[in-house]
């Protein structure tokens, strides 16, 4: 064997993706496929008077063009979330009466290619009477203008934990208060949304979609199009990232599916970047008020978090996000009283949705920034203050005042590792030197001790399906209800199954993201794929071994002298029987028929944790922030595939840096996103923005998971923003935490530096 043929790729996905032979939705070659272009609202809020699609039909090669009037009555996005939330708040597939955000679809035009479809879309005549825009949850909550007639703009009101008694605040030695904004973010997977729907020739539908929850999409499409779920098959081909933003059943998907059925032709829609910035969902979007009380020794007495959440124009998958924030308001601490209140509000910007972290980054930010503000108020060491207040390792499982049961944890250990990896003493010395030296650039140090939730909760997310089948050729096929959008499931799941079977990984093929191959599944979000899907496959593989042992005994009896029950042993894909006989799984399948084990794995959410530390330097004259060092200590439980997991940590860390320093979807007063130049205006981190970083791990296995796994994938988005912003606040010695709001643009930092200078 030559050296070149011996090359082993890190992942099975790598060869096709590195040679241009991967297949994303836009790459699928389908005969006679029509391409869709949507006509979208330019106004944030208005009453639709007329949408005339007829002129589009005059454009050469445009096939049909549809506005809402041509759709079946009440063709709306199937509701999601708590019962009652969507009632009276229909999300029309094509807006026929009212538009509620810039970019909302009004009509769809199909043509043989995208150029002609866009020509047709340009010809559609739209007449909308403007109504007042409601930008941001505060304005919308306070406004008399109702986004949905007869219903208030506040859609959700919740309390988590008991309200903190007044006497606790009154008796506290110190109470700090802070207000934070979680800006709206654009998820920006490099591949935007994409769908292709084709009639299957038997009255059903084949759908290819870049999606995190193909089973839910299948069920929603069936429901909306009045097709039984088994007549719809959704396949997720190669998918170009998602980060939480591809789990909804979008209006565009419903329109494309309907048109494919009506016309009896394949129809595809591939979102372009300009559309994505206004019409795809946004992440985050909260106004937070936090109060934290402590006694003379710095022991936390009470924390109150008030969340005003921006749902955007339609309450859909985004409804779950602020609830997650509230449930995690306790953080890593043994605080006696914790209470969180949530109000979620509809506004006239694009609907919000989970985005990498989905409520946990918001919670960690609210808690951890306030902890450091309290340390500053007390003149205490933020590291010591945390140590004094952590939930102790012997107190797990631990139920928090906000109703979470943390499975396991050693928060002080993660903090110790972070302090060590950051070389805290050295940087503190440097900080002191600079503070003493006139004109030296200020340097600051910040931390974040986080706890998050993975796997999911609620009846919808507590389970995942895995199956392992022995095939006649001696190989094994693993099927999982998850859906990969870049996380390398083909590789990692094959490893899980091969390990459980004790066979070579090359003998296992893993499939997910296809409702035809895997009829039941939940999907990939909440960092759940390994924790839930991997565990299901592990247990299915173990059951396959038991099944094969039983089957081998039956086979032995039929093929020769019987052997005692339970006498077959598994040996790396072979069944060994008394008397030196054996049979391979492939032959066993040939001789006895299908050999397959299915497992539905159920588990409560898991609570990974860790500690992030940042050292920053600030130029007070320009407001520029330079991150000199970043340390991430994560505890994901037992790590199954270290290389892929590390990749998740680094990627999420840079996304977290994006929220802290660069990214924001701003809107003008009319609700128009100020991103006319797309990716020139929306600043994603590039290679130049990646700071020197160090990754460390602690490993506290998940006690109720067969792999010991907790979720990994979102931690960087959770840990980085508070650590970095705390470091900037430390550099500027800010007494008022409200002066720093993300993203820390040079202008904001410059103003904060001026304010701090004026106050001192």
């Amino acid at each position, binding site marked *: 064997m030559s050296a070149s043929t011996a090359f082993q790729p890190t992942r099975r996905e790598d060869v096709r993706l590195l040679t241009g032979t991967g297949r*994303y939705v836009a790459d699928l070659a389908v005969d006679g496929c029509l391409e869709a272009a949507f006509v979208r609202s330019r106004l944030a809020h208005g009453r639709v008077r007329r949408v005339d699609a007829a002129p589009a039909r005059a454009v050469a090669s445009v096939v049909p063009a549809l506005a809402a009037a041509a759709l079946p009555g009440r063709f709306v996005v199937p509701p999601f979330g708590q019962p009652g939330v969507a009632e009276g708040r229909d999300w029309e597939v094509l807006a026929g009466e009212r538009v509620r955000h810039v970019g909302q679809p009004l009509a769809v035009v199909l043509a043989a290619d995208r150029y002609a479809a866009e020509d047709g879309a340009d010809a559609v005549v739209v007449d909308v009477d403007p109504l007042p825009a409601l930008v941001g949850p505060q304005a919308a909550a306070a406004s008399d203008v109702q986004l949905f007639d007869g219903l208030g703009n506040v859609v959700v009101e919740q309390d988590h934990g008991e309200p903190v008694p007044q006497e606790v605040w009154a008796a506290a030695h110190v109470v700090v208060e802070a207000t934070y904004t979680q800006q709206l973010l654009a998820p920006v997977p490099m591949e935007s949304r994409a769908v292709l729907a084709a009639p299957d020739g038997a009255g059903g539908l084949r759908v290819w979609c870049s999606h995190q929850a193909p089973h839910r999409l299948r069920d929603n499409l069936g429901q909306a199009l009045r097709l039984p779920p088994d007549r719809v098959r959704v396949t997720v081909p190669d998918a170009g990232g998602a980060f939480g933003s591809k789990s909804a059943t979008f209006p565009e998907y419903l329109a494309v599916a309907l048109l494919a059925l009506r016309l009896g032709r394949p129809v595809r829609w591939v979102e372009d970047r300009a559309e994505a910035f206004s019409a795809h969902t946004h992440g985050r979007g909260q106004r937070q008020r936090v109060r934290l009380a402590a006694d003379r020794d710095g022991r936390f007495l009470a924390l109150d978090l008030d969340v005003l959440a921006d749902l955007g124009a339609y309450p859909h998958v985004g409804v779950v996000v602020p609830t997650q924030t509230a449930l995690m308001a306790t953080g890593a601490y043994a605080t006696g009283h914790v209470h969180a209140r949530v109000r979620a509000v509809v506004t006239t910007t694009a609907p919000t949705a989970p985005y990498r972290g989905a409520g946990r980054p918001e919670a960690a930010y609210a808690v951890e920034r306030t902890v450091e503000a309290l340390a500053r108020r007390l003149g205490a060491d933020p590291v010591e203050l945390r140590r004094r207040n952590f939930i102790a390792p012997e107190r797990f499982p631990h139920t928090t005042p906000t109703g979470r049961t943390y499975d396991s944890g050693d928060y002080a250990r993660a903090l110790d590792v972070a302090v060590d990896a950051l070389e805290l003493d050295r940087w503190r010395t440097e900080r002191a030197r600079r503070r003493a030296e006139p004109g030296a650039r200020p340097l600051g140090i910040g931390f974040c001790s986080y706890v998050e939730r993975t796997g999911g909760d609620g009846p919808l997310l507590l389970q995942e399906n895995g199956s392992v089948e022995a095939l006649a050729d001696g190989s094994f096929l693993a099927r999982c209800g998850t859906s990969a959008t870049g996380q390398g499931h083909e590789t990692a799941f094959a490893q899980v199954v091969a390990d459980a079977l004790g066979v070579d990984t090359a003998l296992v093929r893993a499939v997910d993201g296809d409702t035809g191959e895997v009829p039941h599944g939940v999907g990939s979000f909440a960092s759940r794929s390994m924790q839930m899907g991997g565990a299901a496959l592990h247990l299915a593989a173990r059951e396959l071994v038991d099944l094969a042992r039983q089957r081998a005994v039956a086979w032995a009896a039929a093929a020769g002298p019987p052997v005692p029950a339970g006498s077959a042993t598994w040996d790396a894909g072979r069944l060994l029987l008394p008397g030196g006989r054996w049979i391979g799984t492939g032959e066993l399948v040939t001789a006895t028929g299908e050999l397959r084990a299915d497992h539905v794995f159920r588990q409560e959410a898991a609570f990974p944790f860790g500690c992030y530390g940042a050292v920053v330097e600030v130029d007070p004259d320009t407001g520029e922030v330079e991150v000199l060092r970043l340390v991430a200590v994560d505890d994901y439980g037992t790590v199954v595939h270290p290389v892929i997991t590390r990749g998740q940590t680094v990627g999420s860390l840079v996304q977290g840096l994006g929220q802290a320093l660069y990214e924001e979807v701003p809107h003008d007063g009319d609700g128009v996103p100020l991103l006319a130049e797309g990716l*020139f205006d929306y600043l994603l981190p*590039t*290679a130049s923005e990646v700071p020197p*970083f160090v990754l460390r791990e602690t490993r506290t296995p998940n006690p109720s998971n067969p792999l010991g796994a907790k979720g990994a994938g979102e931690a960087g988005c959770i840990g980085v923003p508070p650590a970095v912003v705390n470091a900037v606040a430390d550099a500027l010695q800010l007494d008022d935490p409200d002066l720093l709001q993300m993203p820390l643009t040079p202008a904001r930092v410059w103003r904060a530096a001026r304010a701090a200078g004026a106050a001192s």
Partner: protein
Amino acid sequence: MRVEFDVNGERRSVDVEPRRHLADVLRDELGLTGTHLACEHGVCGSCTVLLDGEAVRSCLLLAVQCEGRSVRTVEGLADGEGPGGLNPLQRAFSAEHALQCGFCTPGFVVLLQGALERDPAVFDDPEALRRLLSSNLCRCTGYEPIRRAALRAAGRDPDAV
């Protein structure tokens, strides 16, 4: 309009509307879907191809501008089929886990292949390499593995810098 150019060493002749950009012609007319479109306004670099050896954004170039020229896409990089056919840069990407979803990957690989062939000095200068890598966007990897893959492919020690 008829336009003739070399694509991955093969002479191709296609009839195209003058307004069609090179990326669409590569993808739709020539079936080379490895070149990906992620922004279509020249920011992200996912659609990077080599035009007469120079890295360009194929979404900013009309196909008719390529008359008589030579285009190299991600499909033209490997030395053969399968893992054994990956070229040293492609191997380095896999070895360093420098790709996750793979959507931006063709652009980065083509960009760096161009630099390896035309401007290898870039790999000795951390600042120049940083600038080069900053011309493309990736949302999954956090870039550090891509930087390491570039150094490894150039025969430099990724841990040295």
